[in-house]
């Protein structure tokens, strides 16, 4: 047998310590993997005003953002569906009132695509398929439906979303609401 391929032990770790160390490492990895990313600030912090230029600067800002925070996602949804924008508290209150979200959202935490998909389906009146019609616009069903419509790139509910994808999603929603021809063609 070639000794180069024989099992080797990590230097400094005895048999008794190796197993707990590996377990601890895996636990740390899992914990870190399940934690949502928190950003230092949101685009809506800087461009959250309601005037025309602030609104356009906000869209420009999130277009380049690799991750959208809860504040950005709420602000974008509220602007897109014609509700009154404000600070994060008032926007979150509006989102709860309209049943977009049930849980508490941290301001600068990365937004889950699940609740965004649910909000989009509720605001655009998308009824979905049989399961969604039976159980209502749950995050999972709403997301599957939007994935099937090719409004989203096959995402899962816990995933974070980039600003460009969020703008594309909201643009498609607007096309559906305004009856743009290309959206009708794709549905047909």
């Amino acid at each position: 047998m070639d000794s180069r391929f024989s099992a080797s032990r990590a230097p400094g770790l005895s048999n008794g310590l190796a197993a707990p160390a590996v377990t601890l490492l895996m636990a740390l990895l899992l914990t870190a993997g399940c934690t949502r990313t928190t950003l230092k600030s949101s685009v809506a912090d800087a461009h959250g005003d309601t005037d025309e230029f602030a609104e356009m600067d906000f869209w420009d800002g999130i277009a380049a953002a690799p991750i959208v925070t809860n504040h950005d996602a709420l602000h974008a949804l509220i602007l897109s569906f014609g509700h009154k924008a404000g600070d994060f508290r008032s926007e979150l209150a509006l989102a709860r009132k309209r049943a977009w979200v049930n849980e508490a959202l941290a301001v600068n935490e990365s937004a889950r695509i699940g609740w965004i998909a649910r909000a989009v389906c509720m605001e655009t009146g998308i009824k979905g398929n049989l399961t969604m019609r039976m159980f209502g616009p749950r995050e999972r069903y709403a997301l599957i439906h939007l994935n099937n419509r090719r409004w989203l790139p096959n995402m899962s509910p816990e995933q974070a979303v980039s600003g460009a994808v969020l703008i594309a999603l909201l643009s498609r929603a607007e096309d559906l609401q305004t009856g743009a021809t290309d959206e009708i063609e794709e549905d047909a």
Partner: protein
Amino acid sequence: MMSRLKTLRPSSLGVLLLLASLATAQDKGKTDKTTGTDGDDTASSSSPGTSPGATPESSSKAEALPKGTVKVLKAIVMKIQGIAQARLKPKTKWVKLKVNDVLEPGAVIRTGRKSFVALRIGKNATVLIERQSRIAIPTILQDGDTLKTRLKMQFGKADVKVDRVGLRNDFGVATPTATMAVRGSRTKLIWDPVRGFAIKTSERNRLHAIEVAYANSISALLSGGDGSSQRYQLPAVEAFYKTFILPLLGSFPPAEPGDPRQSGPGNLTESPISALGLPALHGPRGNRKITNVTGGGGGGEGQDP
């Protein structure tokens, strides 16, 4: 059936005749295409449906520049709905767009939700930038007999119509993932990160309606006599007139002998444009000939947009 025919009013007959004549003009255009006389690629070929008695002013051709001569063109805003802003030069502030604003190459345009902006770019293109779009226009120029235009679409949706004006069309659109050339056609271009680059059928009626409405507004601006050697004081508007209205006149069926339209060169006030639903354009009357169409006059530099 006969009773229905009897009840046709003269106005209905007039509309039918107008539709028939427009259909004839379209058929003639198709025939020219099949026989290979495509006005798109050769500057010397005649445009479809041009009247044999047409004057130099009413020709649908745009003039070619001497070889090697490059002229920078501009774009003009024809219609706006909702929020439309532009950055006219790099690292400058965004400004709100208005109808008749003139944009130079390098301008970046952004539109908001439920918004659009319609532009006439250079001599040959109409672009409708739709909701939530970011589009730059890095190049608008005429190089000899070639009209070169480049659009850079960061994301969004735009309808593009490139007209045949007797010069070579070199119209390109670049997106983050693809580049496309548009030649004498109408297409809707969409780019988003989910679907990537998509091409759809254009809303040609909407584009045409915007163009005609804009032409209407232009004629309303200058109704009545003015003393300029130009039809329109604003050079961009004058260029629009030359590249859009005149081809429209040129595509109308040829006039019959004895038709008052043939009474003199440049007699645009008696042209069939009123039959197309447009109010009479203010043009030179009688046999007076335009001597300086793109000259200075009261219209600034006299450059085409």
